């Protein structure tokens, strides 16, 4: 039995595109490939060496197009942990609140910002100012001014020919991409209403230390450092809502609270909200981050001629007159990050700086903040009221080292 060669399977377009792409790198202007040469690796700095930071550092290295040359974290043990694994000398493992400034001062082309969300806007702005490409974890901010700041950084990055990519795994997953495109094209008709949820157990625990360093280590328990569960985790599902509907909500109303955790500064256990979108589209949303039960990130939207159903890690499909069977996404957590890491490298090499993920991420981040504000106040809050209030959240970190 004959075997089909890889080049044959690629087809003519694949072959031509590949050949042309290889040639393209040699004619790009230096300004479009800042800090990189056709065959050299992207020098990467990692800002934030906690659980996800150290995990994603491995994926960047595994990609093959990056060389990790610098890292930073408030805590020495975390920075040195990444440094030791990737054979960085101590001079390139930075600590303290200003660790990111030292990373930016190293010879890096790009930074991956995986620090607590509270710090991301300032760190991203500094990175763009320093002429570095930015790969940012979600959420990109914990308040309205922070979102505005990130939006501006995305634009400044584009003006400086820098790539700014926000890492949402769903947006890099083909079944999600295809299903959402079909909905936006009208394959299930006009959207009517839907549900979305994001439910997990105690991801960060129950208790929040009182001192600054304790809070920095358990930042996920601090409602300001993390943005609360609706911004820090539930944004996964709220981002899919805004992606499917392709709009920001007009208002939100609902509730939330603590039954298991104690303390004003600690995150909520749950949120239950209704989001009102343009054209009368309504979404019921709920989340929890405690206990046991069915976990997951799920979205269902009903429309005049069908429905879309998405499960993070599970099935994605459309129902109706033009059905789309989609498929399952069992490795989305890693596959999505891997895809985004590859896109980041490709964009840097190609000088592709439309930075399209930034405004979409700002939109879903503000959606989460809108829901949080409604739950905190117990009142219906409109998008315009939220933007006008421009509330900034501040956490006193006296006692932490610079």
């Amino acid at each position, binding site marked *: 039995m004959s075997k089909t060669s890889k080049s044959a399977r690629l087809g003519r377009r694949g072959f031509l595109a590949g050949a042309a792409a290889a040639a393209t790198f040699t004619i790009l202007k230096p300004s479009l490939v800042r800090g990189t040469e056709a065959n050299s690796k992207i020098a990467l700095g990692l800002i934030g060496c906690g659980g996800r930071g150290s995990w994603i550092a491995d994926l960047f290295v595994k990609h093959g197009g990056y060389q990790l040359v610098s890292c930073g974290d408030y805590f020495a043990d975390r920075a040195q942990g990444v440094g030791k694994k990737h054979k960085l000398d101590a001079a390139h493992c930075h600590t303290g609140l200003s660790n990111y400034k030292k990373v930016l001062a190293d010879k890096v082309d790009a930074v991956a910002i995986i620090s607590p969300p509270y710090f991301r806007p300032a760190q991203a702005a500094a990175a763009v100012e320093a002429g570095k490409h930015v790969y940012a974890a979600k959420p990109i901010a914990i308040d309205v001014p922070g979102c505005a700041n990130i939006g501006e950084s995305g634009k400044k990055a584009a003006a400086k020919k820098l790539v700014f990519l926000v890492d949402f795994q769903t947006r890099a997953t083909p079944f999600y991409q295809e299903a959402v495109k079909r909905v936006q094209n009208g394959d299930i008709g006009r959207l009517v209403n839907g549900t979305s949820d994001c439910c997990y157990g105690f991801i960060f625990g129950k208790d929040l230390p009182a001192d600054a360093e304790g809070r920095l280590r358990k930042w996920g328990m601090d409602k300001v450092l993390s943005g609360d569960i609706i911004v820090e985790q539930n944004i996964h599902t709220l981002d899919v809502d805004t992606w499917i509907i392709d709009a920001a909500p007009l208002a939100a109303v609902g509730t939330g609270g603590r039954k298991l955790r104690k303390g004003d500064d600690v995150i909520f256990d749950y949120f239950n909200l209704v989001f009102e979108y343009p054209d009368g589209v309504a979404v019921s949303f709920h989340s929890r981050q405690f206990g046991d039960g069915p976990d997951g990130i799920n979205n269902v939207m009903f429309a005049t001629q069908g429905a879309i159903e998405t499960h993070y890690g599970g099935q994605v499909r459309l129902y109706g007159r*033009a059905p789309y069977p989609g498929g399952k996404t069992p490795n989305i957590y890693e596959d999505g990050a891997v895809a985004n890491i590859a896109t980041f490298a490709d964009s840097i090499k190609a000088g592709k700086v439309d930075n399209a993920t930034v405004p979409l991420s700002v939109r879903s981040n503000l959606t989460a903040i809108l829901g949080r504000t409604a739950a905190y106040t117990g009142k219906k809050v409109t998008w315009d009221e939220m933007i006008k209030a421009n509330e900034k959240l501040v956490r006193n970190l006296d006692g932490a080292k610079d």
Partner: protein
Amino acid sequence: MNQRQRALRVGLAVILAGAACLAWGCNRDAPDAQPTTKPAAAPTTGPATSPALTTGAASSMPAHPGAGAIMVNSIGMKLIYVPPGEFRMGSDPSEPGRHDDETAHDVKITLGFWIAATEVTQAQWVKVMSINRSEPKGDNLPANKLSWPQAVDFCRKLSQAEGRAYRLPTEAQWEYACRSGSTGAFSGGTADEVAWHMDDSDGTPHAVAGKKPNAWGLYDMHGNVAEWCRDFYQRDLGSAPAVDPAAPAEGGARIVRGGSWDNFARACRGAARASFNPAYPLDRVGLRVIIEPESPNPSQNP
């Protein structure tokens, strides 16, 4: 040769309108301009109005017709000649409604081809395929509820009857013809001027050629029914220049272009790329055929 094939062979008309100067010639700087030479015969999209027919098939078609040449085939289908050229495939990131599988890149089409001025009508479909499952019914309504293999079978049977290579267009050929020298989201006018889409179709397909044509005289490239193309769907077409890009050799879904009466206008943009399971016969999907007179391998896949 059965009776229908004989009828098809006999019923060939080639009406050349001469070397009309379209977007590649004197109108290159006016991409939205209408053809300067009118067709020698009125469009004939229904069986009742078939033009005067001549005998013979390929021999009646010149090897290198002029841009904008027009012919009417044995089933009354009007086709327009599109000469080789280059265009920018995909959409600019700033285009409203775009999706991120539309990365803009330069494409060169090295072979000229004939393309039907309209979507295949139900009357034309019946002449070749006998059975019409379209909904709603109507001679001049576009054929629909046909799978990709059935669309290919239509091309095969028509090719056999006329002795020439009818094909579904590649998506690059389709977009080249749709753009007809233009660069925006819609070619030949606004969405409402050129397309039957969800917000102006009243929930049904319409008789072909009911909206404005594009600069090359092609109707309903946007909206009405979406059109099967030859290619498998490949999400990332890349930003590198390509020459006569063709489908990957393997794949799942087949490309559908142009959007339909049941899609939002954004899905009817010239750069919008859709795909469906080739086995699905959908009431929003039909076809438009091309002939590749200069193809060195006319027996290649559909």
